[in-house]
């Protein structure tokens, strides 16, 4: 069996959240500097030339919304990585629980190409029914992840409105119930 070499670059949720808070603080500092320039009658170049206060606030609101989208995508990617690493570790270490046994069978058939949604999470749901809701919530949110990851060129049919806070909650809840 050829084992996948892990990069060690996977980010966990707390690292991603810290990065988000740093980036948000930077945006807020930039916003304050821009508003101070307006209040003090200073001239700024593009993109702020001829902006009013409302224009500036709208501009930064959009930038911060985009930051939240990108961090949401990173959170979903991090959870996917955690689930896949756990899948492979269970196979490589030949653990004896039901999920691990099912994963070994899956690995014999599909190896590292096992589908997150159709294979790995399906086994989790079948073997750990108490995790079903958290997995379902995550799978619904994957539609939002796919929309972000593939360029947002279509109108997504989402079960609910997603934002950074509820994406973080969904991700954290899934990792908690799976205990990985």
């Amino acid at each position: 069996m050829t084992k996948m070499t892990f990069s060690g670059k996977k980010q966990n949720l707390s690292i991603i959240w810290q990065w988000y808070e740093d980036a948000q603080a930077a945006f807020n500092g930039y916003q304050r500097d821009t508003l101070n320039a307006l209040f003090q009658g200073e001239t700024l170049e593009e993109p702020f030339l001829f902006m009013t206060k409302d224009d500036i606030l709208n501009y930064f609101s959009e930038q911060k919304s985009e930051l939240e989208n990108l961090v949401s995508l990173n959170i979903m990617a991090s959870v996917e990585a955690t689930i896949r690493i756990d899948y492979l570790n269970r196979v490589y270490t030949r653990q004896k629980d039901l999920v691990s046994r099912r994963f070994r069978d899956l690995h014999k058939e599909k190896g590292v190409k096992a589908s997150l949604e159709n294979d790995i999470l399906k086994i989790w749901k079948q073997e750990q029914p108490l995790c079903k809701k958290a997995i379902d919530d995550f799978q619904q949110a994957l539609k939002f992840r796919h929309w972000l990851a593939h360029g947002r060129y279509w109108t997504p049919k989402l079960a609910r409105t997603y934002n950074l806070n509820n994406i973080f909650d969904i991700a954290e809840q899934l990792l908690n119930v799976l205990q990985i």
Partner: protein
Amino acid sequence: MELETFLRNKKARYNTQRVVIDREGNQKIWLAGLKKLYTNINTWLNSLIQENVVTVNYEEITLAEDFLEPYRVENMHITAGTELVSLKPMGMNVIGAAGRVDMEGEESTVMLVLLPEKINNYQWYIVVRTPQKNYFPLVKESFTDALEQVMRKDD
């Protein structure tokens, strides 16, 4: 920090920022510029108003801007056929200009900005995005181009 201290600090900062520049003087420049803008447009449209090709009317509004008491200005509405073009003063607190008026038609909006030309002399400019913002003096010809841009493109 206590609530009272926190909000008093905010007010103190506001008062400090308020006096950094001559806001009352700037407001006079802005309001005079606005008057000049409407006068110029009326001059350009005068013969068409006489011929009932267009009508011009005004709507009084209140602008609330930081560091100033709310004050009254007018939107200018130009009606041509079934179309309305509105010139809406956005305010004098604008980065890089002494004031801004947005000219809104059915199809788009064009910015007009008041910029210093020489000492104590201000001129209106029309802002064109290409895609950076460029600006050209607002004269009858550029005003006509702006109208064509914001109004319906008839065949």
